[in-house]
């Protein structure tokens, strides 16, 4: 899927992906690719600005660990992130339903 299309929904995708389990950026990306059946193939560098922004907004928190001698930052959903995800999901479902109705109506 075109990355421009995905960017508008990236926050919801990241929050949803992290709801299941805390993860570092690379693992988030892998999960996104897997859960979408390979449809969501973002330029990898694009998820970090989003993760950082969501963290600054209080929707994610992070902590570091050491993995193979490297510093690894693990992100997790905060309660505010949980609420935001829920709201964004509702918004998306309404939008998707509206799109589907419109496309069906036009045959």
């Amino acid at each position: 899927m075109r990355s421009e299309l995905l960017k508008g929904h990236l926050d919801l995708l990241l929050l949803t992906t992290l709801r299941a389990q805390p993860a570092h950026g690379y693992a988030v990306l892998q999960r996104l690719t897997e859960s979408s059946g390979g449809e969501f193939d973002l330029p990898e560098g694009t998820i970090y600005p989003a993760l950082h922004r969501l963290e600054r907004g209080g929707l994610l928190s992070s902590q570091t660990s050491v993995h193979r001698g490297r510093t690894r930052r693990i992100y997790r959903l905060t309660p505010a992130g949980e609420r935001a995800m829920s709201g964004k999901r509702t918004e998306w479902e309404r939008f998707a339903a509206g799109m589907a109705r419109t496309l069906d109506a036009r045959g």
Partner: protein
Amino acid sequence: MSGDDPIAAYLERVSRALGRWHPGRRRILAEIEDHLREKVDADQTAEEAVRRFGDAAEVAAGLARPTAVRRRITAGGLAVIVAAAGAGGVDCEPPGRTRAVDMSLLGGSGLGGPFILYGTAPRAATELAITDAEGRTRTFALPRVPVRGESSRQAVILDLTTVGIHSCHRLALLAGGRVFARQQFIPA
């Protein structure tokens, strides 16, 4: 020095693009390095890992922190703060009386994008009107969020990019359709 290591060379490029004084530089570089080296651990070549990560300058631009909380403007008993993001953000430079920004108004959450935020006596304001350089005005209802540690105040945070605004020329606060505070901006 990066030598023949494409990942080290890439990190140098990102580092240069971020700039020496970027507050999150070390964290960002560590995070990117972990990502790239993990891909190499998973049998991808370093060159391919770097290629798939994206252009260093574009990655750095995406990770640029808001350039500044530009100014605090006192207008009609209101304190209006305009925060400008980096590339692609709202870019306004208010003229006139300015003071240093009271960061406590940000509630400790930091800045994740271009915001307009106001405090001190905002309860009367119900709408915010933004006029861009082409003279188009859009009006937004003001959502309220409590300001941490400032229980007597409320603040409004509005990420203008989410409503498709990337420049503003004039800003007005309204109550009941009446403008009671206005601020003109000169694009920086």
